[in-house]
């Protein structure tokens, strides 16, 4: 019979309860952190809200993205812990929704209502609501599944390596390897007869994949997601993002080797499948939060999108310019390119094209193979 652990002290009880609240809210809280929290409470005491809050933040939080979730959980937890369960009455707020769709000429009936009252008005642009749909990847038909499996087995994503800053032993290296030379000299009574050398090693460049998952890309996004998964699981130093109405990082979710688990996890993480695209905004968010800080520096960045953008093409152009300046190679994969008579006239595509190093097709397995070749080939121009 197993002993049931009964928390003895207030600090322990508080820590365990709060950890449970956080886990319920979706935060990962390992046991070590809970123990650290108990120690911390032992130092600062459990009486004051502020000190408990900061003690929890120092021991249970790992990323600034979780701060908001932590704040809300702590508010709930502290109210319950303090025994104050009275709920404040929430005033119902009437909000008028006005749809602003550039394509529609006729006025909606709600327009008149907007002018009549003083309620706060939310103007919803194209992709009026984020389409919260969870795609079921098990709904592939046999043909698509076969294609995807072919993709996985045949593609290699190595890409040109770059010089690493770590040195490793090499026969004809350019720099002397002093430790090894001294050791070898002991055998000869102190004479450095055998000299050892070292060379800088090689390292794979980072590969960043930005996949457009909006409505216009729907026929292609599923197959391309398989491609992205193959890249993530088949290579080191890969990052994967989904672009839709917003940018979502899905590298961790795609890490599983089993394609079905990985894709199921990714589909849970990403919420705006088949919505509208805000290419410029998403790339700006990527630049600000990830790219400029170092993820895109010297990396190979591949954008898989048809270029249909509901946002301002100026924004997209500026962000692509910023991106191109720091990457090693910028590749744009467009499934529409193969269409006979296609010219990149779509607002987004035309704006982004000058800042793209390689513009390739992306509609079929052959196109994906060509893409893998483009990634692996050493470009002539070296920035």
């Amino acid at each position, binding site marked *: 019979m197993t002993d049931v652990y009964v928390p003895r002290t207030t600090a322990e009880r508080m820590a365990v309860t709060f950890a449970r609240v956080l886990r319920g809210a979706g935060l990962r809280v*390992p046991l*070590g*952190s809970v123990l*650290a929290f108990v*120690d*911390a409470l032992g*130092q*600062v005491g459990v009486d004051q809200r*502020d*000190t408990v809050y*900061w*003690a929890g*933040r*120092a*021991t249970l*939080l*790992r990323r*600034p993205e979780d*701060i908001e979730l932590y704040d809300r959980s702590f508010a709930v937890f502290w109210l319950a812990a303090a025994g104050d369960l009275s709920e404040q009455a929430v005033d119902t707020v009437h909000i008028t929704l006005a749809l602003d769709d550039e394509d529609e000429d006729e006025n909606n009936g709600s327009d008149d209502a907007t002018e009549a009252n003083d309620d706060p008005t939310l103007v919803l642009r194209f992709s009026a609501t984020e389409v919260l749909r969870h795609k079921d990847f098990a709904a592939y038909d046999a043909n698509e599944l076969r294609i995807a499996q072919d993709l996985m087995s045949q593609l290699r994503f190595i890409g040109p390596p770059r010089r*690493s*800053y*770590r040195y490793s032993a090499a026969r004809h290296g350019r720099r002397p390897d*002093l*430790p090894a*030379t*001294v050791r070898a*000299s*002991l*055998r000869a*009574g*102190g004479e*450095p007869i055998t000299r050892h050398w070292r060379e800088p090693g090689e390292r794979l460049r980072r590969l960043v994949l930005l996949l457009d998952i909006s409505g216009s890309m729907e026929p292609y996004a599923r197959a391309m997601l398989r491609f992205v998964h193959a890249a993530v699981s088949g290579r080191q130093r890969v990052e994967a993002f989904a672009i839709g109405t917003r940018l979502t990082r899905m590298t961790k979710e795609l890490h599983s080797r089993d394609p079905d688990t990985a894709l199921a996890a990714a589909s849970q993480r990403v919420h705006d499948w088949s919505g509208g695209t805000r290419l410029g905004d998403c790339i700006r968010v990527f630049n*600000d939060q990830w790219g*400029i*800080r*170092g*993820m895109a520096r010297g990396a190979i960045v591949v954008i898989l999108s048809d270029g249909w953008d509901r946002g301002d093409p100026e924004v997209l152009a500026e962000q692509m310019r910023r991106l191109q300046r720091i990457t090693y190679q910028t590749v744009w994969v467009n499934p529409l390119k193969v269409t006979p008579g296609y010219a990149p006239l779509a607002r987004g595509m035309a704006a982004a094209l000058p800042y793209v190093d390689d513009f390739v097709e992306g509609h079929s397995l052959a196109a994906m193979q060509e893409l893998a070749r483009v990634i692996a080939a050493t470009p002539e121009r070296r920035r």
Partner: protein
Amino acid sequence: MATQPNTPADVAHALSLHGYIPDDGLATSVFLAMTLRRPLLLEGEAGVGKTEVAKVLSRWTGGELIRLQCYEGIDVSQAVYDWDYSRQLLHLRAAEATGESLGLTTNALEQQLYNERFLLKRALLQAIDHVGDTPPILLIDEIDRADDEFEAYLLEVLSEYQITVPEIGRFSAVRPPLVVLTSNRTRDVHDALKRRCLYHWVEHPDFEREVRIVRMRVPQALERLARQVAGAVETLRTLNLYKPPGVAETIDWAQALAALGRTELDEATVEATLGAVLKYREDQDRTRQHGIADLVKQAFERGFQPS
């Protein structure tokens, strides 16, 4: 003896005395780092004052500041220890010249060579093998620039506070150093290392705190100027710039304005000194687009103090 504060408020007070004004969160995290003897990981944008924390801690506690600047490819020979090969080779020559090496076996010769006197102690080993009453402050700066291999080694060191040099033996810390790690978040620090440390995300300070910081760091700037500068920087941070200015930039700007003898902001001065606070051309352009006159006006309003 090692400084032992009683409450986070003590820490905040002591840090303020030595030139750093922390917020409640940072004071609590530092307090816990000192009392629980855990390393402290400070993450935040560039220029918010992460490295300063370690320097101030050193001033306060009197412990020696040992700094390890990380970069990609940093390895054991630069971070932990290295052998002084040139002196070892000379020692071999000397032993040969005096005829001493004739009577020695290779093992004995090796033992002479791999001795502590030829050992160059780098930052990590210096911190572990520190002698003295006050534990040193080990600052591991910009850990996000190092790579996975170094992080794995660091995790081992920070767990046991022990370093093994194969030829000599094990060095243990009599008193564990106070470890502060900083990261600009260009890369995610490995989970295992994060779990070992206490974590604090350093934010830009709020208006009142920033004014106090400017007053403390730039005493030649008058209260009115400090308030206007803090107000202007607060506005700049809302403009969606590529690199929003941090506390370091605020201090630089205040120093520049004070050096020019200004007692308040005006359009021409701001235009001339914009480079002290914004380092990207696109950011400067965007500020001009927003309007420097507007910026100055908002700064005046924000900094206004009814007397």
